[in-house]
């Protein structure tokens, strides 16, 4: 070790951090703090390490896919997201939700395996130990926060969450991944020893063996996946009895998150005086539904992929957004568009369509779904549908498009 070579300050700090603290009076060692309060035979560093590694992989997948979804919705200047492959976001977000749901039994088993350590005696040995325990509390709380708030969001049940889900889930993700890195650094030697040496299984008769518990977690994760993944993997639909959304449900055989009634646009969209306003650098166009239907119509088959993990494919017909951009006098190969809904308010009332999606001929201002005019809940009279984008950015009930040059 190079510790001897370290300057005196660091050495003194290190000594202070590992200075033993006075233990609390022994009389307080009651209940779960008693020696032998837990049957620890079924628990082992090897079990905890295996569960921890699986959970670490699951959380890393969730973090990466979740970050992608966040960056698409709030792109910083350095971030770009392509318009192809059309179903890429469908995959990343489907994996995000499926992995998060499957980590429920993993997290439960992992926390059970280390539960006796919560009642270690003395509760705090030295300042370094206090910091480590605090960081574990942060990790456990953040992990539970992510899994439980995610499950609640998939069920669209917001009453138990006294905060804005998106912001809470995003910042708790950073907290969880940071605490996970620190935890891995602290526990690395234990994990290495536990996995490099064969440890006999000491679990008692009548309890789950180590392999039995790992198998149980695997079956539970698999069952949860089969019971929910039908929301995006259509062939699983019939057995996915717990799928939060079913492809094929909803008007025009496509699920809906926000209805026209819920958005308060019913009167505005059925008004015969409806006009789409396209504002461009050269001119402003006002188009009636008849005008829009008179422009070149194109049909694309594209999925709606919701951030909540469900997705379903529709056949959309309408005007290419790049044609509208050209109509407003901008260069469709180098433009972005600010699309506004007829909704009076709402966090997803507007969206910016970046240059790659404007360029893509699959990006439509759709007027029809499955050959029929859009159902009001699907965005009648006109909605945005673009390849490889989250559903919340596929603005419905479009009333105004502002085109700007991207460069």
């Amino acid at each position, binding site marked *: 070790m190079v510790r001897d070579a370290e300057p005196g300050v660091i050495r003194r700090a290190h000594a202070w951090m590992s200075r033993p603290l006075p233990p609390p009076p022994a009389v307080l060692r009651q209940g779960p703090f008693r020696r*032998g309060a837990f049957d*620890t*035979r079924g628990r082992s560093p090897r079990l905890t390490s295996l569960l921890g590694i699986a959970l670490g992989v699951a959380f890393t997948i969730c973090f990466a896919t979740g970050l992608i979804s966040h960056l698409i919705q709030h792109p910083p200047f350095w971030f770009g997201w392509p318009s192809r492959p059309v179903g890429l976001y469908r995959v990343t977000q489907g994996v995000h939700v499926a992995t998060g*749901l499957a980590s*429920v*039994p993993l997290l*439960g088993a992992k*926390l*059970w395996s280390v*539960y*006796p*350590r*919560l009642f270690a005696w003395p509760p705090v040995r030295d300042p370094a130990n206090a910091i480590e325990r605090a*960081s574990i509390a942060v990790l456990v*709380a*953040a992990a*539970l*926060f992510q899994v439980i708030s995610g499950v609640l969001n998939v*069920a*669209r*049940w917001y009453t138990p*969450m*006294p*905060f*804005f889900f*998106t*912001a*809470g889930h995003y*910042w708790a993700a*950073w*907290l969880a991944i*940071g*605490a*996970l*890195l*620190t935890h891995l*650094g*602290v526990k*690395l030697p234990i994990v290495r020893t536990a996995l490099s040496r064969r440890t006999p*299984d*000491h679990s*008692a*008769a*009548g*309890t*789950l*063996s180590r*392999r*039995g518990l790992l*198998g*149980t977690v695997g*079956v*539970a994760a698999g*069952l*949860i996946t089969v*019971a*929910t993944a039908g929301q995006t993997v259509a062939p699983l639909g019939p057995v996915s*009895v*717990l799928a*939060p959304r079913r492809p094929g449900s909803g008007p025009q055989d496509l699920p809906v998150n926000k209805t026209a009634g819920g958005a308060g646009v019913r009167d505005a969209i059925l008004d015969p005086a409806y006009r789409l306003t396209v504002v461009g650098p050269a001119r402003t166009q006002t188009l009636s539904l008849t005008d829009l239907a008179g422009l070149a119509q194109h049909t694309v088959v594209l999925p709606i992929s919701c951030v909540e993990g469900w997705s379903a494919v529709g056949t959309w017909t309408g005007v290419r957004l790049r044609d509208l951009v050209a109509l407003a006098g901008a260069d469709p190969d180098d433009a972005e568009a600010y699309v506004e809904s007829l909704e009076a308010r709402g966090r997803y009332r507007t969206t910016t369509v970046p240059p790659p999606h404007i360029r893509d001929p699959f990006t439509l201002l759709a007027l029809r779904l499955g050959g029929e005019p859009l159902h009001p809940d699907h965005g009648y009279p006109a909605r945005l549908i673009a390849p490889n984008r989250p559903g919340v950015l596929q603005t419905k009930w479009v009333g105004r498009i502002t085109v700007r040059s991207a460069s």
Partner: protein
Amino acid sequence: MRAVLIAAGALVMAFAVTGALTDPDFKGGALVFLVGVLVAHDAVLLPLTIGAGALIGRFVPLRSRPLVRSAALISLAVTVVALPLVLGPGTDYGRGLLEVYGVVWAGTGVVLVIRRVREGRRRRGDTRPRSPLPDPPPARSPGPPPTPGPAPRSPAPGTPPR
């Protein structure tokens, strides 16, 4: 390596805290929820689960116990995922949840019965001619959930976790 991981983790956590505090969309309710889920899990759900496990240890015959524990844990995990769907707005998922319970416990029952029949046959000496049906493969059970390593273990002295 370890120091790098620990320091990087601390930096990321600091980023999370400052980011949350400066985000106008972030509400203090998230802190309440953060502490709430920790307390609800560590002080309520996990003790109840361990208590349920003790009840299984008290009332379920020794040889069936691991499998019943396994089925109970699977049911618990499915419940955590499904309960918000059942209690939340929209479609009622109560029936779907009951169907999953049905599959889990029916599968468990089938495995237990098959195992009992097989053990009974073995105990009777197995000298009589066998039934015309070939024996099922001995190691793995058919259908979900698979047998979670039910062999009785030697009650070795406890090794405390580290």
